[in-house]
């Protein structure tokens, strides 16, 4: 597991779940932290066979800049025939996706095992 350098209030960890690659986010995603997350996502998009799970169970707060960063990640993955599944979204964060109707745009599961089955 590799952790990105600590800055702002978001930690980004790259891990695996079986054969799947997981981006585990810990902390708040806002205007201050989303640019670093975006840079990480842009690097991951360049990988071969870019299929990812983004584990949001450690994210208690997200604003529209975080949502936008995830939308961009999914769009870029789709252009490379990749995919992303969001896992473990906390209720408060999930309401953001519902209000913006992005809960229909993303594949969202409760657990990593469910994500792996997608």
């Amino acid at each position: 597991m590799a952790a990105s350098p600590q800055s702002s209030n978001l930690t980004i960890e790259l891990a695996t779940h079986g054969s799947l690659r997981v981006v585990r986010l810990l902390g708040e995603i806002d205007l201050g932290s989303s640019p670093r997350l975006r840079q990480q996502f842009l690097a991951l998009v360049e990988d071969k066979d870019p299929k990812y799970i983004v584990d949001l169970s450690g994210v208690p707060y997200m604003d529209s800049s975080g949502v936008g960063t995830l939308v961009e990640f999914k769009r870029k993955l789709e252009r490379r025939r990749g995919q992303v599944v969001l896992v473990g979204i906390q209720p408060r964060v999930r309401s953001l996706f519902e209000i913006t109707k992005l809960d229909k745009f993303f594949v969202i599961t409760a657990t990593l095992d469910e994500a792996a089955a997608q």
Partner: protein
Amino acid sequence: MKTRELFQIDLPSNPERLPAFREELRAWLVHQPWDEHQLCDIILAVDEALTNVIRHGYKNQSDQPIYFTAMALNGDGEPPGIEIRIRDYGQQVDLSKIAGRDLGDIRPGGLGVHLIRAMMSSADYFHAPGGGLLLIMRKSLNHTGRSQE
């Protein structure tokens, strides 16, 4: 007789300041009669408004002034709740163009104003004297916000 409590703070347009400010705002709001959902609605709406100021008003300059005032409303002639004013000296835009994007047009960005209007009872932008924008947001105590639907 009106009872009003004020929370006033001058902020720099620095995104790194936002997490601590959200905590300061929460610490003030918990002394008001909001439930947890409403409290989170207010914090998100304020965060989105400040994000818009930094991104669009100040073009990501991190050292520009933002004047924030929150006022608890609990008196005659107005419903109990909160009024929040956010004033900047950034670029003035056509007020009619301050709107959330069509939610069917899925792309990054364009959601901040949509979320503000979903979380608050009202949100009105004005061109401020001397430049910049003034945003006045209100939320009444009986406003649940769309996060609870």
